């Protein structure tokens, strides 16, 4: 490679030429470093997004009932359909309700566990850290299969509960899914918050302790404000994850008849694509991606302002 053959010995009196030569080598290196990711990002991120937008602007036209289908430009026809599709908006409302309840519970628990791990009150911290994190190694599909069995009236080891309370019925199945998601992700979020607690210099606490602050006061007044950025990060990822729910409800469908084919927005995308109505499915995808992007962006901006205040 020519980059490697840049002469090591450069005459002392010529720093200018050396700088230009090395900066040329650096430019080439940057191009080599960025290109692989850049090309793949373009091919499998940027182009699909553009392609989805294009597809969502097309509509299928037939000449007569039995004519060959033909894609023509339809403007916002698909988006009109999206906005009139009550099933889709019901699914959006469902995951928003899910997120409003599940995300604060999950992050609240994660924060509590992280603070306890960081406090002097616990023994066996390493064990708790691993035990709480272990569910993160269980993929959503597998977690849903496990909990599906645990929820089912006939197979569950908690039959006394599950034969009396229909966890897989229409009223509770959304919260049954919330429990699965919480089970998988609490430990992961706990670790993110815990690592940022570890990064706080201890001197800060020493000073507070000398002033007579209790553990609770230290946690509330010092630790929590300092880990807010970590909590915001976990919240953004949780919001994105909630809007994208698919694996858990789709898997639970074989345990519960209460989950229909448009239970979450992504299920609606999948169902519509299987019809197949690709143009409408593409429009769903675009609306969902935009909504996710805007929601997480607005959340990031509004919390950042609060933090700096």
């Amino acid at each position, binding site marked *: *490679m020519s980059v*490697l*053959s*840049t002469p090591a010995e450069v005459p002392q009196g010529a720093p200018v030429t050396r700088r230009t030569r090395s900066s040329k*080598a*650096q430019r080439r*290196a940057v191009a080599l470093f960025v290109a*692989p*990711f850049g090309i*793949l*990002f373009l*091919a*499998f*991120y940027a182009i*699909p*997004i553009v392609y*989805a937008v294009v597809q969502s602007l097309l509509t299928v036209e037939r000449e007569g009932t039995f004519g060959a289908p033909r894609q023509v430009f339809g403007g916002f026809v698909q988006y009109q359909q999206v906005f009139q599709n009550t099933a889709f908006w019901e699914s959006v409302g469902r995951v928003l309700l899910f997120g409003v309840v599940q995300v604060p519970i999950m992050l609240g628990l994660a924060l*509590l566990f992280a603070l306890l791990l960081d406090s*002097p*009150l*616990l023994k066996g911290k390493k064990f*708790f*850290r*691993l*035990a709480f994190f*272990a569910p*993160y*190694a269980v993929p*959503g*599909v*597998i977690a849903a*299969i*496990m909990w599906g*069995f*645990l929820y089912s009236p006939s197979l569950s*080891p908690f039959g006394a509960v599950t034969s009396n309370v229909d966890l897989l019925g229409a009223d509770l199945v959304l919260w049954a899914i919330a429990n699965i998601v919480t089970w998988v992700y*609490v430990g992961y979020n706990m*670790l993110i*918050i815990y*690592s*940022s607690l*570890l990064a706080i*210099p*201890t001197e800060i606490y020493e000073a507070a*302790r000398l002033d007579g602050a209790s553990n609770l006061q230290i946690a509330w007044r010092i630790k929590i404000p300092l880990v807010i*950025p*970590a*909590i915001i*990060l976990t919240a953004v990822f949780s919001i994105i994850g909630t*809007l*994208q729910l698919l*694996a858990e409800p*789709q898997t639970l*469908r074989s345990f519960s008849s209460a989950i229909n084919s448009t239970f979450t927005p*992504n299920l609606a995308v999948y169902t519509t*694509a299987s019809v197949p109505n690709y143009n409408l499915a*593409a429009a769903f*995808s675009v609306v*969902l991606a935009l909504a*996710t992007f805007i929601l997480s962006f607005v959340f990031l901006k509004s919390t950042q302002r609060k933090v700096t205040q």
Partner: protein
Amino acid sequence: MTAAPATASKRRRGGSSTAHGARNRARGPRQSIMSRSAAMLIMGVFTLYFLTPIWWLLTTSTKTGGEITSTAPLWFTADSAETFLANLGRLFTYGDGLFGRWLLNSALYAGVGALIGTIIAAMCGYALAKYEFRGREAIFNIVLSGVLVPATALALPLFLIFSRVELTNTMWAVFLPSLVSPFGVYLARIYAAASVPGELLEAARLDGSGEIRTFFTVSTRLMAPALVTIFLFQFVAIWNNFFLPLIMLRDQALFPVTLGLYAWNSQISQIPELRSLVIVGALVSILPLIIAFLALQRFWSSGLGAGGVK
């Protein structure tokens, strides 16, 4: 954004024991015992919550289909070991060894995919952190918006594109899109900025080492804990990815293990014998990840928080 999680945590752990000792002496022992027990109680209860489903999976894999309902649910039977081996044998022979195939596919998609993806992300993040060049901020902002675009939103358009070039229902359709991880680039940039000193790069330049060689021999070593974290994140993301294989693949022989188990699970009502296979299969499929996490613990537990430290 600055982060030096490893050193910070070490410093913290070294200093904490004396702090605790001082605190305990200052406080009455009674209150300390009460809050200690409360803390242990909370953690104990939630340990049960987190581990019981996995324990149930373990005990249930050692039972025959009939024993699942007829024996004590969270404990083993007299001939657990034999039944477990028999279940394993059936799992790997059912449908011409389909399950083994799925495991291999998952290892390929997630293992090779995350490995290549990590190298690519590390190179890009490193360039963004360590070089001044035109368009640097623009690229970083595009990468950041990529983090906020959920991967599942891309599954359908990817399917439409791959069907245009007739590559759906091939391994490439799942493998290639999995290589791209904007979050990996974001993390790599943070880690590279924190762990690779600019002076070192200057010194390497004066020694006549090329930029690329410096990256692969010096910088990757400094970034090693971070690279393991990025690898693990991407490995988990690919291993757990459901929508992409679901929409891309028809041929069962190409399925990753999650999609395969999903397919078996949805056939249980027609083929009841699949139930115990799904349960044993679920256990076998989560073991590699749990082992990987345990083995690489010291890397990710220090690297994980850096994304949130600002």
